[in-house]
Structures are given as structure tokens and as C-alpha cells.
């Protein structure tokens, strides 16, 4: 386990509060956070929430899941269906988020129950294929999901709530920092929640089942129930991330964004950072998605300014090389540091033992 057995269990390491503090203060100093930059950071943090969810399955419980983005899609779509003005429900942001979490947890159980018998690789294929089925449903059930255009406009949180003469929902649209702080708060809450679970009986059971399901069963742990709980909790956290993402974008957008590529990208972030490690997962997300969402657009803008206009026909851009860059990073990591950048201590010890 990555957490030390101290009284202050919520502080797994000393730099984490510093990073969260920096993230909380930065938008107050740098004005660009009110616009595009704030939106980009919000997206990265929301993906961080999703990655934490995936880490429950792959990292803590050792179940390879290749369809996590489908739960982002289901969560986002549930929120949109419950809140868009064209539907009669319009139940408002908070109840809709809770409903998304509930629906995704239920779908997670629904996927988990029949697939528990499958071996590791088969489970990976089934979750991958499940993700494709969900994507097809989101694309094709046009009356409900809006098809390829997606469903929108999703009203922002607090729409219609007047605080001090200003519509709260309007502030969310005008200033990207509102969503930024919402995402930061959710990310912090999920970190604390998972750190609590990690130290509870359930968290220990997850790891016991990952290490040796048979041995765990002989100790009276119900392997089925423990695995199912991981399925449901991972799905619920991903659903929470999906509903936040859709709310911040104002639409569900093209359902293809919830396909295999997104699932694999989130998985890569978890593995890059360190399977089974909460700070590792966050570092992986910061590097992979920070690179993809924040650095590449910035670097490409810069590169375009640098090149003479005659090159414009085939502009040199990092964007067209990003797949290869991520691919090389993954291969190099697996070769030289398979435990990730900020590994969970137990897994690191195991991996190095296995290589000798």
C-alpha cells in the first residue's frame, strides 16, 4: 500500500498538498485561467478523476479494464438527458450528477456480474468490446442521445440560482475558473475518498484479491463481491467524471470521444504514473494529458509562428506526431520502469523481484 500507517493518512506524501495548493492559487494570479487555459486544466483534472476510478480496477484489484471511457459516456449522457431543456425532466445539476453516478455504478455491476468468470486477458477483451457497444449505442440511438452531434445544451451548475444579483449558472459560462474550482474540489474529494477506502477493509480486500484470489478466498474474503465492488466504484467515479466533463463542455459532443482511444489513453496515464498508486495516477494524468491538451496546442501555435508562411501547406506540428510520441513513451516506460513514475511500493518491489 502506498499510504503510510500514520495518523495523518490523508497526507500520503508532502508534495501533494503543495501541488493542490498551487493549483488552487494559480488561477487567482494568472488571468489566462479565466479563458482557454482554465478550460484545458479543467479537462485534465476531470480526466484525473476518471483515471483514479480506473486505478481502482486495474491498480488496486488487478482487473484489466479497456473500456473505462464508456462509463464517462454513460455518465455524461445521463446528466445530459436529465438536464437539457428539450427533455421534460430538467432536474438540475446536483440531482443529475448523483443520478449519473448511480446509473454508472449499476451499469458497472451489470458488466461485472457476467464477466467475473473470465480470465485476465478475456476480461480485457470483453471490457474493450463493451466500450465499443456503448459507443455504438450513443451514436445510433439518435432520438435519445442526439447521435453524432451529441445532446445539448447542457445547462451549467446553478443555472437560475441568483446569488447577489448574478445568475450563478452564467458565471460558470463567462469565467472558466468556476468549473476549474469545481473540478479541483471534486478531484480532491475523490482522492480523499479513495485514500480512505484504500486503508479500509474493502481496500485491503481489493489488494488481497489482486495478489492472490485463492488465498484471499481461504481467508473468508468473497472474491466475487470484492471484484464487483471494484467494478461498481470504478464505474461510478468514471461516471462522475463524465458528467462533469459534459457539464463543462455544455454538450455531450461526438460520442466517438468515448471510444477505445480515450479508454486506452486513460489506462496509459495510470500505468505511466504507477499502477495502484494514487499520486502516481495523478502524475501520469498530468504528464500525458497535460502534454496532449495543454502543451501540444501551445507548442503548435508557437511552431506556426516560427515557420515562414511558405511552409503553411504542410505545417510542422507536434499534433501529427502525438500518437507516436505517446507510443514511444509507453514502450520505454515498460522496458525500464514498469512500475511507473511514482510507484506503489508493494508493486515496485514485486516487479523487480519478478525480473530477477
Amino acid at each position, binding site marked *: 500500500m502506498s499510504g503510510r500507517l500514520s495518523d495523518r493518512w490523508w497526507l500520503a506524501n508532502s508534495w501533494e498538498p503543495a501541488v493542490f495548493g498551487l493549483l488552487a492559487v494559480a488561477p487567482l494570479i494568472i488571468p489566462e485561467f479565466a479563458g482557454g487555459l482554465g478550460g484545458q486544466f479543467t479537462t485534465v483534472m476531470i480526466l484525473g478523476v476518471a483515471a483514479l476510478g480506473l486505478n481502482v480496477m486495474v491498480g488496486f484489484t488487478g482487473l484489466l479494464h479497456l473500456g473505462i471511457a464508456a462509463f464517462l459516456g454513460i455518465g455524461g449522457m445521463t446528466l445530459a438527458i436529465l438536464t437539457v431543456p428539450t427533455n421534460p425532466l430538467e432536474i438540475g445539476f446536483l440531482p443529475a450528477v448523483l443520478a449519473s453516478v448511480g446509473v454508472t455504478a449499476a451499469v458497472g455491476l451489470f458488466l461485472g456480474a457476467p464477466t467475473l468468470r473470465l480470465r485476465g486477458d478475456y476480461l480485457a477483451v*470483453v471490457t474493450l468490446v463493451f466500450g465499443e457497444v456503448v459507443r455504438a449505442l450513443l451514436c445510433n440511438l439518435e432520438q435519445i442521445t442526439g447521435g453524432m452531434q451529441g445532446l445539448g445544451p447542457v445547462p451549467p451548475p446553478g443555472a437560475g440560482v441568483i446569488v447577489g444579483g448574478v445568475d450563478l449558472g452564467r458565471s460558470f459560462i463567462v469565467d472558466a475558473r468556476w468549473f476549474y474550482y469545481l473540478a479541483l474540489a471534486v478531484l480532491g474529494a475523490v482522492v480523499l475518498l479513495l485514500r480512505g477506502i484504500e486503508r479500509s477493509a474493502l481496500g485491503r480486500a481489493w489488494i488481497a484479491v489482486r495478489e492472490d484470489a485463492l488465498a484471499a478466498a481461504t481467508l473468508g474474503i468473497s472474491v466475487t463481491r470484492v471484484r464487483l465492488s471494484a467494478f461498481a466504484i470504478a464505474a461510478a467515479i468514471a461516471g462522475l467524471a463524465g458528467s462533469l466533463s459534459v457539464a463543462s463542455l455544455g454538450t455531450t459532443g461526438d460520442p466517438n470521444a468515448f471510444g477505445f482511444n480515450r479508454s486506452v489513453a486513460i489506462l496509459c496515464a495510470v500505468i505511466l504514473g504507477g499502477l495502484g498508486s494514487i499520486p502516481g495516477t495523478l502524475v501520469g494524468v498530468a504528464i500525458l494529458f497535460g502534454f496532449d491538451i495543454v502543451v501540444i496546442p501551445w507548442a503548435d501555435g508557437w511552431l506556426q509562428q516560427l515557420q515562414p508562411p511558405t511552409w503553411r501547406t504542410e505545417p510542422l506540428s507536434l499534433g*501529427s506526431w502525438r500518437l*507516436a510520441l505517446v507510443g514511444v513513451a509507453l514502450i520505454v516506460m*515498460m522496458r525500464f520502469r514498469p512500475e511507473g513514475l511514482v510507484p506503489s511500493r508493494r508493486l515496485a518491489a514485486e516487479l523487480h523481484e519478478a525480473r530477477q
Partner: protein
Amino acid sequence: MTLPAFLQQCVLGLTSGGFLGLIAVGYTLVYGTVGLIHFAHGDVVMLGGCLAVGLLSLLAPFAFDPLVGWLMIVLVTISCGFFCGGLNMAIDRLVYRPLRQAPPLAPLVSAVGVSFILMNVGLLWLGSTDQAFPDLVTNAGSPALRSPVTMADLVVLSLVLPALIGLAILLQRTRFGRSLRSVAAVSRVTTPTGGADQFISATFFLGGFLGGVASVAASIHTATINYQMGYQTGLYALAAAVLGGIGSVPGAIVGGLLVGLIRAFSTVVLGPRWAAAAVFLVLIVILAFRPEGLFGQKRRERRPA
């Protein structure tokens, strides 16, 4: 559905099932020998298609006769086979071999990394849009001929059938084929000896070669190619391999034919956009009842990383 329409979908399903089966064999052989889902296999196939487009566009002006065109296609198919086989071998040598003793997740993630790199190569090679596949046999894709067999179907069959027959002979009659089958039936190759490495290399070459043949067949079948084809076709083929029971070569081919037929008929009955969902739902349902696939053997669960 009328009888001609029914027959037409059968032909369509069996031809596409044939090349899906060939790709599925690539997944299954690698899984049988090293116990790895070779996620980059679909992208190797896609690059084979890229090479075929390049070569055939060069040759197109000289294809004055359908027969000459067909011969050119056969030649290009064989070169694509060697290209994909070599590429597959190189991937194994450079990426997977150093990870032979590592826990199973490490090669799997590396496979995803290789897939990304190959996809990026395809993106730079083809651009981000669909490319038309050169039509060397006159009106191969012409809809006028579709009753119930088109020229394209015949060309695809003329590539897929010899490959399948060759594979069967190789597996039944040669020393390599017999050891391949016994390895797949008993366990993975785990001893890191020189002989094992050669054997694994040969397996990767064989899988890649069949994938290269399938890449030309698949491109003729759809008449277009794009850099995401490796992922799309590869996913169907992986579904086929798992459906048949991954590790089993006959299972992969039967799985390929089944996936081809399900896809063809769901395209007509439910509409083209439901085809993928139909195939994958069938896979999930079958796995829920028969977790080892149709022809697979029960094995002890390996510990995941």
C-alpha cells in the same frame, strides 16, 4: 429477405470472414506461443494495406488486362505478406523479447504503444482521410455485377483460399506446424533459449504474413483504406479470435467466418451502423456462457499484474 439477397450476404459474409479469419490467426498464434494479445497486429495489417496502395498505384498504368491486373495483385499480396511478416518479427525482436520474463501487463501496454506508433506512421503515410484502393481488375467493385458474386469477391477469395490451404498444410505436414500446434495446446513458450526465440520469431512472421495477405484482401473488399482501418478491422479480428477460443487456429478461422456472417446479416437486417454492436454483443453473450470461447481450452487463471 429474398433468396438472391440472402446468398449475396452469405458470400459477402464468408469472403470478409475469410480475411478476418486470417488476421485472427495472427492474434491467436502469438497468444498461443507467448501468451500476449498482440494489440498492434491490426496496425501491422493496416501498414500492409498502405504498402499495397503504394505499389498498386505505381503498377496501375501497366494493368492493361484484368488478368495482368490480377497477377499484379497476387505479386503485391505476396510482397505485403513478407513486409508484414518482417515488421511483425521486428516488433517482437525489439519490443516484446526484452519483456519475456516481465509480468503480463508490461508487454500488453508495450503492444498498445507499438499500435500507436504504427497508427501514426499510417497517418503520415495516408493522411487523415480515406484513400481509394486502386482497382486493377476492371470494375471489380462494380455493383452491376453483384448478383450474388462480384469480381471483388472472387479476387478476395483467390487470395484468402490459397493462404488458408497453405496454412493448413503448414500446420499438418511440417515440423514447425506440428510444434506450433503442440505448443498452443500445452502451454506457452517460456524458456528463454535460442531455439525458443527462433520459434517465436517464426510464429510472428507467419502471423504477419497472413495479416499481409489479409490486408490486400480487406482493402479490395472495402475499396478504401485509412489509417484507422487497423483498429477497426483488427478489433473484428480480435473478436473473432476470442470467439473461436484464443490460441486455437481452427477456432480463429471459424470465429472469423462467424463474425463476417454476423456483420453481413446485421448490416442488412439492422442497418450498417449496428453491425459492430451486433458482433460485439454476440461475443459478450457467448463469453458469458463459454468463457474459453468456442474451441478454446480451459486453462488455469494466470495471476494478473
